[in-house]
């Protein structure tokens, strides 16, 4: 997955929204498993893209949200294996995606630059 493009968007978003004079120490994001994004790659690119910027040194925390599907046949809730929406209880195809598509910035920690 091209985590690079996602991190570019994240860094732009954080930089645009950080008040002047604030130093960002930590950025927390939620990433659903259905996005296919890999947390290690996100962290790697975050370090690279924040180098030599006011965000340098900020830590990226990725909270992985494991996908959950509610089967439309038996009502059971299961975690899809390999993105396949095949019910672990009754093998029916499909179902409602309850979570797993998240790609959001949820928290930022910072302090004033003295």
């Amino acid at each position, binding site marked *: *997955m*091209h985590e*690079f*493009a*996602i991190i*570019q*968007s*994240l*860094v*732009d*978003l954080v*930089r*645009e*929204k*950080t*008040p*002047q*004079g*604030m130093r*960002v120490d930590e950025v927390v*994001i*939620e990433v659903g498993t*259905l*996005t*296919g994004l890999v947390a290690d790659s996100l962290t790697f690119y975050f370090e*690279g*893209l*924040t*180098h*030599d*910027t*006011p965000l340098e040194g900020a830590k990226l925390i990725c909270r992985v949200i494991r996908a959950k599907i509610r089967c439309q046949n038996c009502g059971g809730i299961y975690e899809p294996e*390999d*993105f*396949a*929406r*095949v019910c672990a209880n009754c093998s029916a*195809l*499909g179902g409602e995606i309850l979570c797993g598509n998240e*790609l*959001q*910035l*949820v*928290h*930022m*920690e*910072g*302090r*004033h630059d003295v």
Partner: protein
Amino acid sequence: MCETCGCSGDKRGSHDNHGDGHDHPHPHPHPGDHKTSLELPTSILKANEEVAARTRLRLSERGILAVNVVGTPGAGKTALLESTLTKLPDGLRAGIIVGDLATENDARRLTRPGVPVVPIETGTGCHLTAFMIERALDQLPLDEINLLFVENVGNLVCPALFDLGEASKIALISVTEGTDKPEKYPVIVQHATLLLITKTDLLPHVDFDVEKACSLARRVHPEIEIMTLSARSGAGMDLWLSWLSEHHRANRSASGSRA
């Protein structure tokens, strides 16, 4: 122009100059209060999504059906559009936006009288963004078209998450790419409305199991529509053209436009 969010930062990967020269309003900082400037949680792709929403509205107001055609380099995107343009159902007037890292070759292949084409050379960008589409739309005679084909950069990965403001994402997988392709690229399969299995004229020469590929796609996205076709031989093109007509009609009714 920053290709990620459309501001006037330079194009270096680190976006070093992104913060300079901008007149973003900054709230008065309070000690320990670092969240006043951003409502959380917020989508990481918020900037792209906002532009995509704007585009969706703009197209809807004009009754223009937009489809985002994605596929691996060589899947047959341009060939499909070339063939489609020669057989466009009555009443459909197409415009095209074509993205590539380099060259305008595909745009040239699609150029013909009566069909406006806007090429986008992305340079290092591996997918089109909503910003690029918005700018390209400014160059199209929107009063003269009711169907917009966006041929995305050859890539089955990144386009999945980048909304361009289209009505449908159409994923192309050719029979030369291996039966398990839908399993290997589940995210685009999940986001596509329609999967086109292309180059079916080559089936006698490759080990591609169409039924198995369809089954793998439906495991990831049970509701996905699947068609097989060959732009070269014309096989299956009728169903694809019908799909365009039906979706254009439905789109027009939904938007209430008389285009």
